């Protein structure tokens, strides 16, 4: 029970920091669930994040997988709902004021002013994933997988292929690299 409450409160608090969308707090999510609460290992974190990309719906719902790992279905609901309920209530309430607010200097200042820091945070999230990935492979396989990652990044930037297909195709090649 205390795990369920802890999951809900942890993810509820994290969600309010996600000013640049869900990916901007990836590094903090990893630190909280791996280092602070010791709920899952660093490897399990990147595994859950990876498989979450193959799930339908909002990609940030990989946190439900973390909750499931900790405390079954109740944990998944606590983490998943906790991660989006506070921000959903906030956006629901703020909608009433948005029309007056959207033309103001404050709104543009917040939008422009937070863009640099959230960019840095999103790259920090990628760094956290890379570190977790690097801790699991050594030697030539690591080099081969790094080349694969860069290739997928370029394809994602240059084409409009659905990311789920990129995970499936890239994952198939990556698995081959690991087995050969």
């Amino acid at each position: 029970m205390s795990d369920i409450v802890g999951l809900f409160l942890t993810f509820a608090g994290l969600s309010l920091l996600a000013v640049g969308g869900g990916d901007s707090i990836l590094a903090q999510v990893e630190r909280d669930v791996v280092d602070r609460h010791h709920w899952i290992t660093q490897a399990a974190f990147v595994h859950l994040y990876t498989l979450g990309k193959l799930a339908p719906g909002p990609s940030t719902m990989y946190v439900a997988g973390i909750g499931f790992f900790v405390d079954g279905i109740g944990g998944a609901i606590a983490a998943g709902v906790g991660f989006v309920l506070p921000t959903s209530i906030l956006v629901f309430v703020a909608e009433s004021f948005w029309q007056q607010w959207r033309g103001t200097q404050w709104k543009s200042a917040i939008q422009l002013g937070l863009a640099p820091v959230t960019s840095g945070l999103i790259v920090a999230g990628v760094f956290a994933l890379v570190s977790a990935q690097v801790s699991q492979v050594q030697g030539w396989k690591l080099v081969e997988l790094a080349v694969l990652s860069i290739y997928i990044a370029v394809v994602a930037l240059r084409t409009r292929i659905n990311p789920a297909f990129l995970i499936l195709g890239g994952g198939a090649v990556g698995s081959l690299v690991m087995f050969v």
Partner: protein
Amino acid sequence: MVVPIRLMSRGPRKVNESGAMEPTAPRDSGSALQAPPSQAELFWAVLVIGTTCFGGAMTGFIEKVFVHDKAWVSGEEFFVSVEMARVMPGPNAVNLIVLLAKRLGGASGAALAFVAIISPAIAANCLMGELISRLTYSPAFSNIIVGFGAAAVGLAAGGSVSIVRSSLGGFVPILIAGAAFVAVAILHLNVLAALLIFGLPTVLGYLYMARRRAA
């Protein structure tokens, strides 16, 4: 996040006293907005989105359903909602669905849509969690999941490059982004502290510049 989206320009809509939507005159595309959906229709439409949209790029999918297929909201309304969903904290897709559902179905519509958009994802991620907890000690599965991880890392890296490109112009923003990255990734600074240290002064700086320009 300052990410440009394709704006479908549509005519204005009529709003009645209570703020609910009324069918409007034909727009430039020649098709009219439909009457607002019932709660059940709205719930079902969002559930279908939540179940069938893979790969995370949900905004375009939501636009297709709400603006083009069902014609429940105009392109302009959709654009305003997307902008707000991106400025507010939280996952953009969930914010967007809550905003659109509030417009179409009030508080109960928003609550139902909230459940509909996250439930399929939570159920699917339970399956993923079950898979990992069962198979994590199998060497074959470990190889496969590490291989898939490389693809996921590449995807995240590609996404971050496109966000950085679209939101960073000029020397000072790049410097701030770099400092925030080093502080969080290398020095393990808390994200809340990073937002206060690197975000707050920048926001106030932009506000000051805007005020001075206006004066």
